[in-house]
């Protein structure tokens, strides 16, 4: 096994390494002699190293949390998925891209709720309420968009709302009163937003 042997030689060679204090001191002297501003490159190296290690550790888990179907509410990595999504929204520069990303997230939530219903038979009121609230915010945010974009968002919001409503309805066709009220409010909000678009279209 040559590599063991090589390693022993390398360790022997490292005995002849300079004292780190001497290396730092000489670097400062040389920078001073060259008239260069003092930069602590080793600190930068350390910081970049730490960041790279952290991204290496988290990128695998983050990618899994973000893409896997097995990460649904209640999964240990679900919080990581939420964080990545929040970051994604925060990094969106334009309102239109922010709305588009939020729509994508809501579609994903809906898919999660479908999986939850399949696996557990129902989706908790908290999850449904959170979904409706998020959809509400999206409709509000779409006010900042162009009429055509807003109309597109409204159409998607209606589809999402209907699907969520059917998921939230239990086997006896009953919907929780609180959820029902929220859905009604949302319907009204979407209608109001759509009316604005219709008025613009008809020139009133």
């Amino acid at each position, binding site marked *: 096994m*040559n590599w063991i*042997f*090589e390693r*022993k*030689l*390398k360790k*022997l*060679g490292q*005995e*002849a*390494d*300079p*004292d780190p204090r*001497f*290396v730092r001191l*000489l*670097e400062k*002297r*040389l*920078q001073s*002699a*060259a*008239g*260069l501003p003092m*930069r602590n*490159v080793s600190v930068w190296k350390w910081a970049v190293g730490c960041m790279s290690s952290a991204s290496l550790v988290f990128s695998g888990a983050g990618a899994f949390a973000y893409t896997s179907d097995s990460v649904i509410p209640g999964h240990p990595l679900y919080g990581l998925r939420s964080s990545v999504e929040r970051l994604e929204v925060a990094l969106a520069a334009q309102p239109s891209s922010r709305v588009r990303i939020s729509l994508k997230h809501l579609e994903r939530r809906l898919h999660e709720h479908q999986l939850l219903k399949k696996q557990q038979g129902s989706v908790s009121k908290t999850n449904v309420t959170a979904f409706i609230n998020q959809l509400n915010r999206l409709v509000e945010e779409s006010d900042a968009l162009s009429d055509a974009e807003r109309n597109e968002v409204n159409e998607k919001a209606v589809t999402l709302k209907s699907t969520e409503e059917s998921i939230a309805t239990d086997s006896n066709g009953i919907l929780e009163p609180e959820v029902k009220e929220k859905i009604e409010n949302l319907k009204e909000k979407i209608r109001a937003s759509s009316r604005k678009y219709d008025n613009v279209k008809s020139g009133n």
Partner: protein
Amino acid sequence: MDSKHFTAFYQKHVKRVYRFLYYRVGGKKEFAEDMTQDVFMKALNAFDRYDPALSDTSWIITIARNHLINSLQKERPSVNIEEVESIAWEKGEAFRTMSRTHERLRLLDAMTHLPVEDARLVRMKHLEGWSYEDLAVELGKNAGTLRVQAHRALKAMKAHLKQNPGIPVSTIEPALTDEPEPEAGEAI
């Protein structure tokens, strides 16, 4: 090259230069540190004339070698750098300040039993930390050839260690133990 790049250049080569000097000044740390400082000061002054197309390792090692020769010539005008290197290695002076474990002594002993060229290659590659590409430039050989040569040299060292499992009785031993050699006629 711009002096702004000198810090990166220094960080890349400081260990290599220090090791190069350390082994050639008989393992004297203070001496190696002083010389490393002088070498980098010279390199800084000449940095604007350095051509990045050339091997940076060869450039800085050439400065270090010339500085070493000039320093040694002050003490001995007819000094020969090859001679200084081989004496330092063969007498084990290069390892004066290293911790002398049994295993290390055996490794160094095995190295002294290699042909001169092979021993030099193993030293430069494994103790001084040269890359094969830099060695190719320095020794004027192909990197692949040097790789094969180093591999064979290591095999030879391993074979030597296998045949001599006991405590080494070698030429480096007296220098490492710091005991004066008995003079001719002296009772042992």
